[in-house]
């Protein structure tokens, strides 16, 4: 049996008295795209730092490809590409120097792929990293990560602070590359619309706890917005779990989390699928 590309078991991270990540367990299968969602301060970045071996969990363990990431980080990073939340290469380095340095570190470094992306992003190789715009920095980080031919790509909020065009460009790069290769991706993002089409599995962190971890298709299938010409209790009678409900004319509009085709039979009701963003708001939006 193939080990999961990412395996987190009971990971807990504390900063003083505050618990940033609370007993989180998750698996990412090889070749899957895992979207890790959560509001600001939900613990996404702390969890990602644990997944990358940057931070040792106070409890629990993380393995990448079956190996402990804290102990084997150096070896594992040969197989992992990272685009971090803040693009953080040394600011005085020129883009070409960054590539040269990476080329020394990664035996599988693909200079051609890097050069191609650089020209597509229209960034001069002689530019200093610190002088680039935020979007260009992210593009460079992505180009560097992808040129290492990673088996696992970890993207920590890669669209944070980017404009719409840059966001689109970045996701297209990911998607384009995914089309070429079946690499595993773990992405944390606030850009739910962009990730919706590529995510195989979705995890939602709320106050440090993983409150949802499910296949994207299943998730979308069971979350529905339902409008019914009756009071809310009728939904409970039909064994439907209501996440939230409000008056809608003389009837009720509710979000149900265990929708099935037969549940609304006999009622004057209709249902509508929900976007990932709506599901996220339903799950993580309320305190």
């Amino acid at each position, binding site marked *: 049996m193939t080990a999961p590309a990412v395996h987190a078991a009971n990971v807990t991270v504390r900063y003083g008295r505050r618990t940033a990540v609370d007993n989180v367990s998750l698996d990412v299968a090889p070749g899957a795209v895992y979207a890790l969602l959560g509001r600001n301060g939900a613990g996404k970045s702390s969890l990602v730092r644990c997944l990358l071996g940057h931070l040792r969990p106070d409890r629990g363990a993380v393995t990448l490809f079956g190996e402990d990431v804290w102990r084997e980080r150096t070896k594992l990073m040969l197989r992992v590409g990272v685009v971090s939340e803040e693009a953080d290469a040394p600011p005085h380095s020129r883009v070409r*120097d960054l590539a040269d340095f990476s080329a020394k570190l990664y035996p599988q470094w693909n200079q051609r792929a890097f050069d191609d992306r650089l020209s597509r992003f229209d960034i001069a190789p002689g530019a200093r990293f610190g002088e680039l715009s935020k979007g260009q920095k992210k593009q460079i980080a992505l180009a560097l990560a992808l040129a290492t031919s990673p088996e696992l790509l970890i993207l920590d909020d890669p669209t944070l602070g980017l404009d719409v065009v840059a966001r689109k460009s970045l996701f297209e790069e990911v998607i384009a590359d995914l089309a070429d290769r079946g690499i595993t991706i773990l992405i944390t993002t606030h850009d739910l619309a962009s990730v919706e089409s590529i995510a195989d599995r979705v995890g939602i962190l709320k106050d440090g706890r993983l409150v949802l971890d499910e296949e994207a298709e299943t998730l979308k299938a069971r979350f529905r917005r339902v409008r019914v010409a009756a009071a809310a209790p009728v939904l409970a009678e039909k064994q439907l779990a209501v996440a939230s409900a409000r008056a809608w004319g003389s009837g009720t509009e509710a979000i149900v989390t265990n929708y099935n085709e037969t549940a609304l039979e006999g009622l004057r009701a209709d249902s509508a699928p929900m976007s990932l963003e709506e599901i996220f708001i339903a799950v993580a939006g309320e305190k």
Partner: protein
Amino acid sequence: MSTALWIAARDVREKGRLFLIAAVLACMPFLATLLPTAGGNRADVITGFGGILGIAVGLGLAAGLGLSAIGADLSSRRMTYWFSQPITPAALWTGKALAALFTSFACFAIITIPTLLFARTAVVLRYGENWQVPALLIGSMVILFLLGHTASTIFRSRSPILGIDLAAVILASVAMAMLARPILFTPIFLPMLFTMAGLFVLVLAVAPFWQLAKGRTDLRRNHAALSQALWSGFGIVIALAGIVVLWLSSGRPASFDRIIELQQNGNGSAVFVAGSAPYRRGLDATFALNPATGASERVYVPPFWGVAFSRDHRFAAWVEPGLWRWSQSEVIVRDLAKGENRQLGVIAPLGTSLVFADDGTRIAIRNAATLSVYDVADGRVVASMPVVQNASHQFWFVTRDVLRVATQLSRGREEAPIEIAELDLRTKRRRVTGTTAAGARQRFLSVSGDGSRMLLRADTTIVDGRTGALIAKLPEADGNIMTSALLNDGRAVVSRRAQKNSSTLTIYAQDGAAQHALTLPARVAWIIGERTDGKLLLLGVTWPANDLESRGYQVLLVDVNRGKLERTLPDTRGPSSFWASNDPRLMQYDAKAKIASVGKNGKLFYWN
């Protein structure tokens, strides 16, 4: 290692501008010679300016790069870049440190090498040609870099751990002071200090490996890991040093096989012995020893700085180096019967002259330009008088209420009169009682037991101790005088070198007439003291002499009344009061006192 070198090369390339700036600065010393205000020798201006500039830039860069090498990346959250690559923490620290140090050294070299090339002779004249100056600079750069990194990590984190660091600094300082105490002023002190400093630098250099391995991208966890490594490392160094110091200082006089200093009071009831036990070379500790009971107590008298005894045998006094500031040393008085030490409450530098009154109730202390008399019981100042700082002073109590002071201003002249004054402790007045002509540098006067006579050793004349009036000029005085002294009753003894391994001792009557002359089997015969039964104790030295085994030394006992060498103790060293005592009167030993001496095996023994 190759990864570390790549990181170093990358960092050095990134700092290329610094080398350009250094190259521009290298021109400054040469341009400075064009300034009309520069004046003087052109080579001097170049070497002076170039040297200062190079040192300032090298040290400043080392400290600055230490502050920024890792700390800046941590605080601006750029460490993710490094830890997202297949780079070990060890390679990262090694690479960053190599780059920073190379940059500092290179900038220093860029600025100073042109100076060296163009004004080599002036450089050699100004800074010398030995390797110590560049080695010291390189060492300083390394230390500044490491301290910069440590401070940067600790202070940037703004973590509560800072409180623990502060507490650890205080604890370590106290521990270091406690460690220093037993070995202060001993030969092992500096080697221990340098070894510990070296180990501390090693800890500073190694701790960041642990810091980055455990803290990685998190600033506070970096701080925690660094503190953990630093204080564990420092703790181990201090603990090891503590074990060494404990072991070194566990030697007791009974186990000493190397005695370098021995002093004894007049009735033989107290011995101060400095030396070391087997395998503990380097810690020459001083102990106060009670020969009757064998009890010993470590006292902090630096060897050879000596102890002053009161002639009633009750007290000893010495200057003990301060724990925190060596210049702030304390005068300690020991009650020899009780075996208790106490601070007199007088701060004085090492080398301060101490003289007791005969009854042990008062002590005169000369400290720089003031000569004060203190009450031994309560440390109260009884009276003071100013003295000329750059003059030779000797003082002694005539009675418990009168201190006599002989002062010779020696300004390089052939003749320098000695002024004699008395400080009356009842009226607290100083009065000049006489002067006497003397050759310059009479430094070590000898005074009779009652203070009424004074022997000018260099001139071999005896003068009145109060008025300075000439009493006698010793006959047959020549240039071979090794040592001389006035006996308790006013007679004089002079030891002269005769032949290769023999000397002559002449005993003179009170009127200066030679009474006896005898040959001693020693090249040099130092007068140690006088016994109350009229016997003179001398330490004879015959070449070649060996301090440790007392080989070549002998204690000689001369009957001054009969002019006979009565006893010879071969391969023996006796108590050496002449080293330390500031009292110009000859040490008086009871006839029945057992004299402490060091035998051939380096062991202490007693004889009468």
